[in-house]
């Protein structure tokens, strides 16, 4: 991204304000009357001021006072919430309630109760004052310590249509070190300069904004391209810029759709990958799988309740705990129920469904049927702006990365560890594995525990994306089975591919059909697909396929 070359001299922000104040002040009334030192004095003069120019001077004075309440006063003034009482002319903040106002003393913040419409009078502002106020507030936002707030302030300035703000921006630029704020400044400057009278400058800024995806920029460009008073070159440039923005938007839309699809796919993979161990490798239908995911999500909630100061680390704490809780629950289910029903898949399905109902109701009884709020760690919230107009929410990106990580670990366990070897041996030929000295019962329990534990880990990740409630598991169970079946039973690569494919497919058809129809479409597609290829995308070959 290239910076807009600027020819204007750069002042410091404070200096410019003082200068403006001085100039305006010198023209109207003697300066010593209004340049008050304390906020209280300044507010007194605000109440006393009876013309808009006079108010403007006072407002600018207030903005230079180093007091957090000064900003509050300006904001209230802009919102039209600053009033004086008729009784003693004291300053209050009033909110309109039916047929009257709820008022608060401005200085003491004391609640003064309700008053009638006639008991207070508003400190009125006109449009030009509002502009000044917005500018001053945005300027103060530029000095915020949080770069995100600074960026928002810069964007606000870009939308202000106030050319004088250019100088503020340029003054501020020297002190700015944060890259995203600087980029936002470039955009804001270019956007403001679109209104410039200088043909040359306008053309430069049109080219500068032609890669910026921003609705405000588009409105301005459209206005320019139809404006008869500007030169045809400029109009054409504006049209070209608009077109290139449209192209960009379209490309971004596709990229975004693919990303959303991948992120939905990652959720599906996470939900299904534990199942691809228990169902795919062991051949056991575990209808309580969704509830094991739910347990993982509730574990996150409990961890956050127990350590409210460690929200940023809560996910890392919750991951091993969720693995253990869901894993042991899985082993318990295997030992008590699944074991008694080996070789009877339909009965296993029903019995584990019973377990899922019990777990659901247990959670409902302990945590109430309401959804629980799980907070997002600060490092996962917000979004990542890759280029202007293309933003990716961080939590989805993290979940995508996490699901790939879980997949890789699982693949490692299955392919490269002793336990994985035993697991595969038992799957392929139980009798022979037994003869070689593998304790097949123990391997069964551990395999089931592994699948269940992975479900718990998935729950921790899902707690960041969906509501954590007793029905969380049910929402995923049909989907996860379909993902496993679609990918091919007994093949965790298949699960990864099918999960991501279904996710992207779902998001691709969504714009055309709408969310619900897209979901139905995918379901129907899978139903038909399974009819054509009952063993999924990547069927097992050889002897394992007979099992």
């Amino acid at each position: 991204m290239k910076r807009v070359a600027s020819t204007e001299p750069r002042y410091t922000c404070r200096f410019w304000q003082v200068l403006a104040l001085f100039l305006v002040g010198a023209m109207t009334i003697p300066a010593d009357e209004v340049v008050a030192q304390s906020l209280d004095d300044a507010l007194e003069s605000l109440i006393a001021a009876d013309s808009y120019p006079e108010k403007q001077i006072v407002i600018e004075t207030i903005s230079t006072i180093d007091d957090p309440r000064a900003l509050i006063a300006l904001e209230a003034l802009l919102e039209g919430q600053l009033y004086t009482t008729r009784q003693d002319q004291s300053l209050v903040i009033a909110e309109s309630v039916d047929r009257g106002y709820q008022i608060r003393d401005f200085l003491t913040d004391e609640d003064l109760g309700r008053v009638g419409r006639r008991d207070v009078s508003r400190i009125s502002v006109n449009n030009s004052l509002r502009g000044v106020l917005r500018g001053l507030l945005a300027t103060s936002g530029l000095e915020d310590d949080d770069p995100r707030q600074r960026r928002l302030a810069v964007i606000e300035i870009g939308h202000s249509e106030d050319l004088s703000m250019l100088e503020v921006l340029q003054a501020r630029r020297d002190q700015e070190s944060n890259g995203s704020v600087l980029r936002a400044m470039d955009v804001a400057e270019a956007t403001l300069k679109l209104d410039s009278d200088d043909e040359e400058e306008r053309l430069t800024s049109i080219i500068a904004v032609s890669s910026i995806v921003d609705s405000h920029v588009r409105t301005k460009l459209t206005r320019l391209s139809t404006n008869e008073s500007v030169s045809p070159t400029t109009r054409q440039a504006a049209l070209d810029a608009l077109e290139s923005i449209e192209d960009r938007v379209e490309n971004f839309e596709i990229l975004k759709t693919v990303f959303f699809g991948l992120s939905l796919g990652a959720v599906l993979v996470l939900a299904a990958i534990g199942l691809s161990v228990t169902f795919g490798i062991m051949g056991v239908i575990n209808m309580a799988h969704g509830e094991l995911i739910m347990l993982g999500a509730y574990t996150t909630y409990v961890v956050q309740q127990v350590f409210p100061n460690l929200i940023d680390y809560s996910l890392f704490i919750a991951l091993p705990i969720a693995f253990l809780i869901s894993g042991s629950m899985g082993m318990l289910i295997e030992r008590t129920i699944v074991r008694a029903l080996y070789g009877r898949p339909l009965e296993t399905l029903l019995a584990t469904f019973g377990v899922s109902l019990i777990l659901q109701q247990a959670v409902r009884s302990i945590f109430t049927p309401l959804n629980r709020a799980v907070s997002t760690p600060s490092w996962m919230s917000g979004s990542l702006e890759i280029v202007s107009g293309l933003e990716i929410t961080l939590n989805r990106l993290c979940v995508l990365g996490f699901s790939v990580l879980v997949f890789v670990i699982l693949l490692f366990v299955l392919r490269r560890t002793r336990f994985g070897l035993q697991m595969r041996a038992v799957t392929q030929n139980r009798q022979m594995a037994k003869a070689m000295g593998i304790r097949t019962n123990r391997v069964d329990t551990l395999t089931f525990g592994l699948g269940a534990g992975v479900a718990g880990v998935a729950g921790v990740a899902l707690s960041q994306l969906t509501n954590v409630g007793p029905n969380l598991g049910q929402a995923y169970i049909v989907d996860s089975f379909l993902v496993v079946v679609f990918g091919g039973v007994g093949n965790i690569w298949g699960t990864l591919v099918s999960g991501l494919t279904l996710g992207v497919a779902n998001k691709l058809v969504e714009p055309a059909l709408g969310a619900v129809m897209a979901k139905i479409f995918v379901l129907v597609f899978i139903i038909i697909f399974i009819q054509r290829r009952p063993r999924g995308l990547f069927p097992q070959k050889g002897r394992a396929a007979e099992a």
Partner: protein
Amino acid sequence: MVASIFSNHERGGKILLGVIALGLVVVPFCNLVVSPESTFHISTFTVTLLGKYLCYALLALALDLVWGYVGILSLGHGAFFALGGYAMGMYLMRQIGSRGVYGDPVLPDFMVFLNWDQLPWYWYGFDHFWFAALMVLLVPGFLAFVFGWLAFRSRVSGVYFAIITQALTYALMLAFFRNEMGFGGNNGLTDFKDLLGANLQSDATRVTLFSVSALALAAGYFLCRYIVTSRLGLVLVAIRDAEDRTRFLGYRVNYYKLWIFTLSAIMAGVAGALYVPQVGIINPNEFQPLNSIELVVWVAVGGRGTLYGAALGAGIVNYAKSTFTTLLPEVWLFVLGGLFVLVTVALPKGLAGIAGRIKSFQHG
């Protein structure tokens, strides 16, 4: 083996038919003739509740026919039930006429509310009872036929079949929740006024509906019983126990499965059609996968592959459900979940199995 499948079922069936016949005499008498003050009076509420159980029993019977005798576990039978219910609901909706809140003579209230100006084409004909009745049979039957044709031909069976039937009912639920579908969205069809000119709120109509449900259950039982004791029934059981062997013997396994599955869906549709006028509402929640799975538990509790056991299980589980959800709503899902586990692990033959075990114990 074959002999053991049929042993002892006659008696249970006779008891079931006896109970239905008794109900057909006693319930109308105690509701309509006995005065409300008497202890023997059966309230209309109870009549409707019993009628509901009868519909559930018919539905369970339909599932037992495919699961108990052919070994096809369908986790989507609730969908056929709901489709039958919707077909009936559409007829009842059209009977409201201009008595709706908006008073439109043609359009049902929800369509007026959605600003539709004409009836969608698929609502045509539903003002005639005969047409609606035909659709009650055809719609579930057709869906089951197409679905089964595709699935059985590709030899999708066992767990895979169970999962895709669940996906089917789930997809239908999502579809029916949409307002654009023209079936009332999540409110479904309700506020019915009358059926064939008879006021749905009147005691006589309720008792008639109860009686029709009882007769339908008896007819369903006779039909299923006839099928499973015929030569066809023997083939079905053979398919259940050794599908490949049956196929190698020269039987066209897919066709047998397909026809039984379709017939079962039609029975489920009839059950749904009788259910809707009694409860007075049909909405997409009937498509919930949970409902279909609960239905499997009715059959499992009563005893799979016995027919009468399925009807019995439907009655008992639903009675338990009504009792628990009014007295201890928190506990119901624990009980239901426990039932799933208990029945599959400890009582594979259900309650009917217990009766058999006691008998063989006495003989042994």
